[in-house]
């Protein structure tokens, strides 16, 4: 389920500080993410994976190199175009959910569509469809404060899907979740992947590998290891049966 690249980076760099104390958060990274691929970028905190995600999603501008989304170069776009691109073509999921506390679940999900100028009727219909898809149709009228962590993250994922994004970019999406909620989020990612959604997840959580086609190990701002994992079903267990 992979095709032409949705996301591409060439020589992507993000340097902080000056010559005396130069930090290479992202150090000349090349990356191609084909359509439909689910990619996990793993590494310890401070390895630069969050910065990488921000550069790929146009949340930060690189100090060097280039980023293309669906063939359009985005690192040189105007702030206005970039904001529109983020709203219309990219879905973001964050560790801390970033939901609006004063809006209900369905209002959080439909907000981006309303800002993009969609009619309230259509936006609501799509938001309800997405909440149903993440298993939260019956929580549509709840405020985030009335939802569990796992439910909030599922609302955030529904919101990320509202604009039918080219790619979903997730930063440590299971970082605040217990193991049952993590399982729910992984199942959701697995379903998105099966439906052909391109996914890039940066994480410390190796369980994400269960839903990834490809795992990149990142350290010191560079890719240390890039492995395509075969889509094998269960087999060799840890110890297994003796």
């Amino acid at each position, binding site marked *: 389920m992979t095709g032409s690249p949705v996301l591409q980076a060439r020589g992507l760099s993000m340097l902080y500080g000056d010559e005396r104390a130069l930090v290479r958060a992202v150090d000349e990274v090349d990356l191609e993410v084909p359509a439909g691929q689910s990619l996990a970028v793993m590494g*310890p905190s401070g390895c630069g994976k969050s910065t990488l995600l921000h550069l790929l999603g146009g949340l930060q501008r690189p100090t060097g190199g280039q980023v293309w989304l669906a063939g359009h170069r985005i690192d040189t776009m105007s702030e206005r175009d970039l904001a529109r691109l983020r709203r219309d073509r990219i879905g973001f999921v964050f560790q801390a959910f970033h939901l609006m506390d004063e809006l209900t679940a369905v209002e959080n999900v439909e907000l981006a569509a309303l800002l993009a100028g969609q009619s309230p009727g259509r936006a609501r219909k799509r938001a309800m469809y997405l909440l149903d898809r993440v298993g939260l149709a019956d929580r549509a009228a709840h405020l985030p404060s009335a939802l569990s962590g796992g439910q909030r993250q599922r609302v955030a994922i529904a919101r990320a899907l509202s604009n039918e994004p080219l790619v979903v970019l997730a930063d440590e999406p299971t970082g605040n979740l217990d*193991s049952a909620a993590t*399982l729910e989020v*992984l*199942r959701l990612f*697995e379903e998105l992947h099966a439906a052909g959604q391109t996914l890039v997840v940066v994480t410390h959580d*190796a*369980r994400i*590998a*269960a*839903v*990834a086609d490809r*795992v990149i*190990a990142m*350290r*010191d701002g560079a890719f*240390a*290891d890039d*492995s395509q*994992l075969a889509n*094998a*079903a*269960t*087999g*060799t*267990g*840890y*110890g*297994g*049966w*003796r």
Partner: protein
Amino acid sequence: MQDVVLAMLAKEPAHGYELRSRMRAALGPLGEAMNAGQIYVTLARLGRAGLVTSERAEGLPDRPDRRVYALTPAGQQRVAGWLAEVSWPKPDLTEFHLKLVAAAAARLADPVALVDAQRREVLRRLRDIQRAALDRSVDPVAGLLLEGVVLRLRADLEWLENCERTWTGRDRTGRKAGA
């Protein structure tokens, strides 16, 4: 294996295939690799040790899979002892640790490359187990076993990360230090 088979028999006398299906149910996806023959080999050993007796069923040919097995009093004692035991499997990291030390000392291989290869392997196992756990049809009790395996593999990955960090900063073959 012997203790497990004995304990599974503690509830009531059973055919070998019943024991097997009880174990498979308890193990969930991890039970699929279980070999039917192992049960009968184990039952035969337990019989010779006087821990299990068996009776052939009326009018059927005398084959291990037709017999009904039961615990002897000695078998019951052994089960009670096993349940009270607190032994726990030790994950053996010594060999891998020494592999890194030896590889670096003899300049045979880059320890960090060895760590990378090992990480891929552990990640692959974790992925397989986690995929099994994602299946909604997994019974919650069998799911507990999968969760335990996932936790152990995550601990192994964390340790490998520490190995990598330490070896990256050292003098080693083939790569520049502190890259």
